[in-house]
């Protein structure tokens, strides 16, 4: 006699969020996370597809997703986080900022009959549970006697560092800024990824035995060649942290920020707490954010929280082509961000003191698809109009950091300034590996972590082969 099958809930358990009217006045986290009961209820929806599970195939770091969800269902939270940490050393981060809807959740079998399992929310739940209940650090592995230098403490570098230290290598991370985390500390706002969480994740990686040296800009303080004299291998994960500007007249007027500058001031330097914190920020009444990605959403939502009266996203394509995550666009809309689609600035107009006061824009229409597969925006002649603004934030992407390529002879780079590697991150210089945005151009946190992971595997193989062949 078979038991009657329990009815599976088609809808995902919603995650509580701060009310938009309230949250627009603070920098506290918007999404509040699942309670134990909510997490277990959501985990119970998982069908536990047999390997190869579709969700795992969508995960750039290959987390055994059905296994950790099963452990949540059984309320074995400690085991669940252990399962995630086998593959992912930044779970509290990825649980919050991964585009799950395009990755693991996109492939979820449940999506065929209802909502996919909220894998990201569950990952976040157990990562937060771990932080509250204390970390278990795995036992120290047997030292290999090999040393690896990691350049850049962003998602790629921290991932590579954690994987390599767990394999028994000595690992030192060199970070140019004063805090580890890269884009996690300077780019993603507090209300989406609280900085104490990034700090806790970095502390965990330090507990594994990784040394992190801040204020150390490789290329200036030491060259890659000098690092190779002290280390057996080097991983470069310096990101795409250089701002792109529009190159239109008036762009250097006061009140015009790159998204990078705006977000560095707000996030890394905590300008929202000025004057308790010393770094100032200027925010006017009418703010225009140029661009349609996650960074544009982040900047717009920061501007609202800093007290701007009107914040507009000015994007040259339509809503459909926006690269930002649907969730982030919704959050921005809920908070009152205004969207100006099919609009592009032509020039910035300043006042007599050199401050921006308006922006001449042109309306666009969509033509044939371009190389990115999105329809190309074409200006509509004669549609120019002026928009009053007193703060502009340019969020049209970043370019690779040129310092390492400039100071490393023999390192092959593309014409876009990205470092050339094979699929495992191996560069044109023996012992030097690279991964993340410095190789792909601006992409996501999780794809950088995936690249860090692959490179760590390749570096380990390289070091062990070198040792076994007795070359060192």
């Amino acid at each position, binding site marked *: 006699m078979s038991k009657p099958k329990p009815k599976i809930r088609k809808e995902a358990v919603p995650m509580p969020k701060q009310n938009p009217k309230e949250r627009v006045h603070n920098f506290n986290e918007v999404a509040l996370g699942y309670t134990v009961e909510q997490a277990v209820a959501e985990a119970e929806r998982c069908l536990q597809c047999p390997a190869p599970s579709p969700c795992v195939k969508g995960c750039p770091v290959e987390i055994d997703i059905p296994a950790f969800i099963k452990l949540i269902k059984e309320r074995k939270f400690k085991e669940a986080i252990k399962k995630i940490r086998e593959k992912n050393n930044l779970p509290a981060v990825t649980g919050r900022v991964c585009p799950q809807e395009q990755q693991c959740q996109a492939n979820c079998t449940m999506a065929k009959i209802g909502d996919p399992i909220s894998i990201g929310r569950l990952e976040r739940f157990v990562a937060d549970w771990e932080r509250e209940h204390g970390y278990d650090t795995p036992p120290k592995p047997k030292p290999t006697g090999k040393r690896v230098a990691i350049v850049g403490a962003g998602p790629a570098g921290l991932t590579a560092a954690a994987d390599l230290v767990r394999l028994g290598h000595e690992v030192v991370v060199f970070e140019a800024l004063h805090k580890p985390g890269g884009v996690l500390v300077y780019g993603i706002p507090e209300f989406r990824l609280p900085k104490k969480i990034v700090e806790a994740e970095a502390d965990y990686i330090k507990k594994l035995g990784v040394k992190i040296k801040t204020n150390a800009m490789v290329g200036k*303080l030491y060259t890659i060649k000098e690092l190779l004299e002290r280390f057996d291998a080097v991983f470069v994960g310096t990101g795409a942290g250089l*701002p792109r*500007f529009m190159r239109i007249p008036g762009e250097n007027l*006061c009140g015009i920020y790159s998204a990078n500058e705006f977000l560095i001031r707000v996030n890394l330097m905590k300008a929202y707490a000025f004057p308790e914190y*010393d770094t100032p*920020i200027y925010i006017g009444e009418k703010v225009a954010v140029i661009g349609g990605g996650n960074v544009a959403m982040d900047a717009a939502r920061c501007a609202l929280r800093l007290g701007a009266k009107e914040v507009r996203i000015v994007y040259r394509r339509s809503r459909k082509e926006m690269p930002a995550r649907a969730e982030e666009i919704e959050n921005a809309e809920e908070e009152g961000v205004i969207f100006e689609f099919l609009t592009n600035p032509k020039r910035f107009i300043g006042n007599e003191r050199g*401050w921006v006061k308006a922006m001449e824009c042109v309306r666009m229409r969509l033509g044939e698809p371009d190389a990115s597969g999105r329809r190309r925006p074409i200006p509509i002649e004669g549609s120019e109009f002026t928009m009053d603004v007193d703060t502009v934030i340019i969020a049209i992407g970043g370019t690779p950091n040129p*310092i390492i390529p400039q100071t490393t002879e023999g390192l092959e780079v593309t014409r876009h300034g990205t470092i050339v590697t094979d699929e495992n991150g191996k560069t044109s210089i023996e012992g030097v590996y690279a991964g993340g945005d410095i190789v792909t151009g601006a992409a996501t946190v999780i794809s950088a972590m995936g690249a860090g992971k692959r490179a760590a595997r390749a570096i380990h193989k390289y070091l062990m082969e070198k040792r076994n062949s007795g070359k060192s």
Partner: protein
Amino acid sequence: MYKIVTKRELVPHINLFEFEAKEVAEKAKPGQFVILRIDETGERIPLTIAGADVGKGTITVVCHEVGKTTKKLGALRAGDSILDLAGPLGKPAKIENFGTVLCVGGGVMIAPLYYQAKALHEAGNKIIGVIGARTANQLIYEEEMRQVCDELYVATDDGTKGYKGLDFLKDLLKERKIDRAIVLGSIITMKLVSEFTRPHGIPTIVNLVPIMVDGMGMCGACRVTVGGKTMFACVNGPDFDGHQVDFEELMARLKMYTAQEKLAFVFYEKGERSS
């Protein structure tokens, strides 16, 4: 943490600091700068390097107390430490034998000018030094400059010492064959000297210190128009052709946070008095 090994008040409100930063000292070159942050709530500020002692493992900066951060720094003593110091940043100044080099420095920037003038002197150049301050008792580094200059002229804005203002340079430039000029000082000084040298076709290098945050090419706060192109002072500079720099724009951008800076200063002074 970066320890202050030496702190010396050179003249009222202008202090010299030697920071323990062994690796920075080994790499530092004239023309480069460091970014420092005093404490957890502090801002990142650029300071031009005024010297490096590889043996002692220290770098020297000279800083004028003009706002909250520089005042906070000025209140520290030898033995104290600051939280962060990153560098050396920016491209080093070009040091080679040019022939005769006019080295003009104003205010606090005379200290890093000395670091460059010394290197240029050692490279075999004849150095004509010009140093200036607002008033006589604000002039720094006169003795040091005298040691590396073949000729040294002093000027003050109010005429309390040496020439009154820099107009005397016009005659000097007519009389002498000068192969290169370098100017470190206020925007006004750099603009003025660049205008003086322009008709003589003397290559003139200015060392710019705009507002910066990271100082590593990431934020673009330090962007400056040079020859119609946008440059980042932190990574493309800080040295630029003085005849090509848009000084008006630079001046406006330097004033971007005047209101906030005043506010921060008022809060700081209040806090200091009550504590």
